[in-house]
């Protein structure tokens, strides 16, 4: 197997999933890149997790009452799923179509929304927006249940346009007006929930979406230049055919799967860094009638994707889930999983509870002096633990190369095992110097495993390793 094929597979799996140990990369590379892309795009063809086992071990995953329990369950799925892109696309939409525990206080309800993202996150964008508009967590989170005929609440109407489908503007132009916001809010009156969900004082119940025709404003509305007695589904129909919607989805996909873009609020005035890639994605959006899967298919097969290695700062959840996959820990719902999951919060990402409806600020904003220390120590502690089966496998692999290794080969071998990471020349030579420190590297020596583990620790502490 050519190393380049494995390096490319490592890149694909980091982006379309949560990384993979070396043996999985080899097996996938043997199957072929395009075949793997197809497999990722059709998660329903892969087996699901054994829910019976999961639920038997974790009562809190059954009752779904606690934020931390739901965070833990989702991270367990990310670590162990055979359908990595299904979890990744759910994470993608969770960061855009934000609902937050701070307001909802109903993890069971939010987990149904995440399941909806799993099931429909690669489907048609208009279908997804319809499901979002009728999702009880969202209806409550953005107050559409407080929006009434004759007394609208604009919260959902505004965020639908600004944060969920069009964006404020593109190419320096505004995508909609304040009147469009009001008209959209009018069209969604009567879209409400029963058993509205605050935890206090009545306890946690699931809410149910209902359409109340008596509370719906059925009068004529003019939205994005089209006039009619629009209801909510008409608004979504009109939104999804706008060029701005294509731009919005394309840019978000690029930012999440290809390379860090400037922060979303800057998009109105800042052109995409790769306008050609965005144009290709926009074209597929219209050709496929808003099909996200078709856009992803183009993206993963494109040169602009294959070349964009280590162009994104890993999010905290990617850092933790991929580390666990790499070291082969938490393959079972065992004690300690909650402690592992909490590290994601310490690194600045509270799943199910984004700071605002704008979601998490990504890219370099993940990193501050506190979160960086948490991240480095978490990764180093895990790759340095020679009791983890994944770490043992990496060491055995290096051992199998022969009785001695050169310092250069120890560094490069560890980089390969971690998913063909690439280092700046200055960094690599420092690590080679570190490897040279302890004298000749005998792979059969008792000192070899800790020595290799130490090298892995130094690699995961580099600035380069913060990226994926």
């Amino acid at each position: 197997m050519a190393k380049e094929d494995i390096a490319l597979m490592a890149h694909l799996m980091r982006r379309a999933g949560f990384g993979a140990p070396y043996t999985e990369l080899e097996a996938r590379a043997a199957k072929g890149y395009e075949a793997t892309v197809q497999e990722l795009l059709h998660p329903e063809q892969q087996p699901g997790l054994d829910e019976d086992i999961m639920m038997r071990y974790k009562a809190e995953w059954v009752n779904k009452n606690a934020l931390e329990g739901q965070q833990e369950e989702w991270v367990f799925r990310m670590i162990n799923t055979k359908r990595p892109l299904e979890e990744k696309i759910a994470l993608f939409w969770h960061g855009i179509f934000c609902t937050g525990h701070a307001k909802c206080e109903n993890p069971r309800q939010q987990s149904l929304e995440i399941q909806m993202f799993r099931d429909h996150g690669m489907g048609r964008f208009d279908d997804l927006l319809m499901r979002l508009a009728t999702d009880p967590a969202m209806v409550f989170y953005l107050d559409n249940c407080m929006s009434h005929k004759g007394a609208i609440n604009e919260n959902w109407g505004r965020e639908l346009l600004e944060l969920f489908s069009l964006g404020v503007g593109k190419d320096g132009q505004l995508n909609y007006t304040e009147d469009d916001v009001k008209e959209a809010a009018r069209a969604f009156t009567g879209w409400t929930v029963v058993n509205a969900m605050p935890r206090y004082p009545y306890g946690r119940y699931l809410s149910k979406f209902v359409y109340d025709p008596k509370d719906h404003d059925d009068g004529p509305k003019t939205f994005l230049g089209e006039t009619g007695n629009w209801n909510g589904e008409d608004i979504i129909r009109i939104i999804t055919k706008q060029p701005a919607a294509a731009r919005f989805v394309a840019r978000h996909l690029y930012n999440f799967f290809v390379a860090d873009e400037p922060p979303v609020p800057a998009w109105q005035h800042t052109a995409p860094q790769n306008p050609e890639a965005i144009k290709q994605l926009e074209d597929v959006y219209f050709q496929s009638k808003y099909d996200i899967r078709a856009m992803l298919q183009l993206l993963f097969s494109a040169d602009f994707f294959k070349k964009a290695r280590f162009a994104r700062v890993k999010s905290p959840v990617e850092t933790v889930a991929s580390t666990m996959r790499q070291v082969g820990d938490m393959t079972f719902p065992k004690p300690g999983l909650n402690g592992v999951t909490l590290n994601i919060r310490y690194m600045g990402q509270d799943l199910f509870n984004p700071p605002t409806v704008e979601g998490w600020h990504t890219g370099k904003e993940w990193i501050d002096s506190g979160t960086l220390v948490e991240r480095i120590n978490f990764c180093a502690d895990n790759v340095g633990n020679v009791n983890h089966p994944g770490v043992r496998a990496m060491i055995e692999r290096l051992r199998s190369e022969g009785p001695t290794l050169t310092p250069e080969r120890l560094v490069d071998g560890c980089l390969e095992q971690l998913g063909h990471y690439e280092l700046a020349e200055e960094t690599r030579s420092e690590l080679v110097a570190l490897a040279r420190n302890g004298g000749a590297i005998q792979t059969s020596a008792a000192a070899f495993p800790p020595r290799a583990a130490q090298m892995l620790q130094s690699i995961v502490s580099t600035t380069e390793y913060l990226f994926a």
Partner: protein
Amino acid sequence: MASNGKKPVLVVLQLSGGNDALNTLIPYSNPLYFDNRPSVRIPADQVLPLNDSVGFHPAMGPIKELYDAGRVAVIQGIGYPKPSRSHFRSMDIWHTCEPDKIGTEGWLGRTLRELDPQKENVLTGVNFGRGLPRALAVAGVPVASVGNLDSYGVLTGIEVEDQRTAALETFARTYSPMLGKGPVVSYIAQTGLDALKGADILTSATADYATTVKYSGEDVPRYMKNIVQTHAADLGTRVLYTTAPYNSFDTHAGELANHTRLWTQTSKAIADFCTDLKEHNISDNVVLLVFSEFGRRVHDNGSGTDHGSGGVAFVIGDKVKGGLYGEYPSLEAGKLLEGDLHFNNDFRGLYATLLEKWMGLDSKPIVGGTFEQLDFL
């Protein structure tokens, strides 16, 4: 402002979960208190009276002693308009001073930006606990966040001393050349080097500390001790923060026993903190703020109390003019807000007092407006 040329220092202790103000500062001579608290009540003869109408919870003896010495300002009826009963949202509001929209900048993060605009000292702000509270978070403002002072730092999991030293040297040598490599990598490299430097200074400077004070327990007591240790090391730290464990004050059930346990521990930790500062002769430039995100419902639920509004906060220190500030909110049914105490004291006025009269800063841009200040400083 602190005297003798030493710069003023603000310490914050956050009581997460919503401390029951009514059972902290108890209106023990008000029959409405006993009417509303058939189960979750402190009998009048157990209250530690401050005057004829209010007194502390019986577990707050050590704070009562500080109060009697004139060093505790009790801020009554504190809150903000249109209270949120969500822990997260209400805490966000206290952290960002943004009750109407979702804010992203913390008030102490803004304070740190004013105190050290050139980011000359990576330890101007230090948090004790895992993860940074939003109060301290502003993009580009470095704040050290210390889970355990004894083992704080980069690559602390490497147990063999020589190995860790070698790994840290490699770390510094690989981060330094990245400083010139584009804005993103430069920023990350600078952050890594700052963290390394901060951890280094913090752990070595605090290692010499010794005390005769016997702190008891994990979490708040340990972190209050760490705060004294850091302040004693004289590293130029101006804001220190710590948090009671996740929602521990959320006493929906079994409140009488739980609240007693919580205040026994918290009162001792606060008193130990004050004694320790005195022992090191470093107490005169420190003020401690103790707050919670909301008070609890006036009427009990049989075993505990549910989320409410209108709370109580404390400011403690040598330079504090002790006493009661603000008014105790009325318990009359007609004057409650949806069954909760009505705030009469905006927390942003408390912040403004601390910022202007203690830290010597313009509070308006930090708290987002002008609010009535109190006279405790």
